[in-house]
């Protein structure tokens, strides 16, 4: 018998507003499963419904339709029991600004009913984990954005959760802080924690996620492992050309005819092919003089572009 998934969503829906006139469907009947020990990603542009989905899984926002089972229990009826086993990192940091860094961890543990001794021990461990020990007794107002994010993540781990939900964990962080966070998330995964995360960053999704779904306007448009999605929805390589407006008008059609799939973006042209060097030399042969030209591997960004016709970060 295959193991039961940790999260199962069936025809899951989220509708905001009053029924009737101002109703808005943010999540429109999605199905997915999250298995134990994996890192599962929700990918999509602004407003795709990622956060709405996460908030329903976190049992903080009621399900409007369909079924949502988490750790074998129904999200609609067993909210507190499920939340006891989750760690939640919301999209916007909601650290307690009236308390110090350490107090944030201490009180959060108390919300889970942990004893005073237990939260002291956990707080010390987590301060170390988030590299915040030196800031422990400062007010959270004195933290940088990245430190604040690390505190939010440390806080979500205070109850040693089975599943950690991370809504855009690294948005707004500098590259160094992002890499530190990734390292911490890998560490959690190695310890057997199941991760569920949303992101705008394709490299992040490729690095962190075992499996992901691509969401667009409240629906799931593709599902699979990152490499699988790349091979299914796009070619092996991409030629990126930046042209002057004049060249673009003159050679656009000719360049388009070189490949089976072509994207015309605001600032560049993308030519999809399995042999980038060959297409690049044929592009030069048309007479076009690109300002820049490069051949690269296809990424999830290209998958997203193929599926939705839009670029992910707008």
């Amino acid at each position, binding site marked *: 018998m295959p193991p039961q998934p940790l999260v199962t969503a069936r025809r899951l829906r989220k509708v905001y507003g009053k029924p009737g006139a101002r109703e808005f469907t943010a999540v429109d009947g999605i199905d997915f499963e999250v298995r134990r020990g994996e890192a599962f990603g929700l990918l999509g542009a602004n407003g795709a419904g990622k956060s709405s989905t996460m908030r329903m899984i976190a049992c903080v*926002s*009621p399900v409007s339709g369909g079924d949502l089972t988490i750790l074998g229990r129904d999200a609609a009826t067993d*909210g507190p029991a499920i939340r006891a086993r989750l760690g939640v990192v919301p999209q916007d940091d909601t650290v307690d600004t009236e308390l110090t860094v350490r107090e944030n961890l201490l009180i959060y543990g108390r919300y889970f*009913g942990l004893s005073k001794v237990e939260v002291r021990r956990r707080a010390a461990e987590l301060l170390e984990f988030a590299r915040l020990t030196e800031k422990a007794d400062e007010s959270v107002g004195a933290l940088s954005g990245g430190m604040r994010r690390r505190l939010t993540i440390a806080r979500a781990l205070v109850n040693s959760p089975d599943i950690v939900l991370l809504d855009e964990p690294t948005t707004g962080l500098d590259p160094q802080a992002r890499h530190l966070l990734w390292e911490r998330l890998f560490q959690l995964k190695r310890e057997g924690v199941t991760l569920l995360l949303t992101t705008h960053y394709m490299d992040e999704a490729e690095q962190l996620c075992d499996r992901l779904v691509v969401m667009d306007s409240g629906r799931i448009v593709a599902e699979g492992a990152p490499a699988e999605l790349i091979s299914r929805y796009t070619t092996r390589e991409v030629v990126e050309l930046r042209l002057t407006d004049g060249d673009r008008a003159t050679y656009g059609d000719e360049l388009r005819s070189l490949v089976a799939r072509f994207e015309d973006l605001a600032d560049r042209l993308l030519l999809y092919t399995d042999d980038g060097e060959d297409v690049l030399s044929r592009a030069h042969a048309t007479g076009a003089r690109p300002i820049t030209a490069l051949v690269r591997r296809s990424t999830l960004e290209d998958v997203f572009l193929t599926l939705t016709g839009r670029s992910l970060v707008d």
Partner: protein
Amino acid sequence: MTAAVDLPTPTLSGRPPARSGGARAMVLRNVMIYRHTWPLLAAEVFEPVLYLVSFGIGIGALVGHVPGTAGTGEGAVRYPQFVAPALLATAAMNGAMNETTFNMFGKLRTDRTYESILTTPMTVWDVALGETCWALLRGALVTAGFLLVVLALGLVGSAWALLVLPSALLIGFAFASLGLLVVTLLRNWQDFQLIQLVMLPMFLFATTFYPLGVYPRPVQLLVECLPLYQSIELLRQPFLGQVGPALLVPAAYLLVFGTASLAVALRRLETTLRG
């Protein structure tokens, strides 16, 4: 995902029931904060002391004894003794209600403190009950501080005045619950003006500074409906050494008033916090 196959799937069925810190954790949070900001509480004691000195003692020097209480002469009530219990009731009211209106509004709308608390096993009920408990404790603490000042000024004439403390808890409960209801109705910081528009007249006219007998009968009936009037009655009688079944009326009033406010507030909070 072959690694997942041989691991047992955790479900919640085998686990002990979910624990939550409950209302107690909410009170603990406030205690943590007031460890840094306790001077605020001291400031709240200072305000009624100002009123007591200026009105009670200053105007008291002109008034002498309060007409309509126990005649003039030895057994009559001196004016500061009349005003002190009313100010005690007001302190309990303000101490509790400020907490669930001013302080809670920020946590509800600006800081979004409750949002993160509700991602834990804590429920809206835990949050509301915890904040109410803390608010009434805080109200009682301010009242106790003020009682010490009143005692030091030699205004306490009867041991029954100790009933002030449990009564302050009841007053705190009524107004903390009212505040909890009010905070769900507030849209922005400007709306606090409206609260002042109700609270100030109530403070001035709820027999704080002169007895009910001053008003014509229809106005008396109106004043008797005010929660602050009932709170003052609950404190003033024992403070002046008059203890009897008459105290049950304001006690019952405040209990019903507080419970009803709390019930409505809970329903409204549930919809505000669980969108």
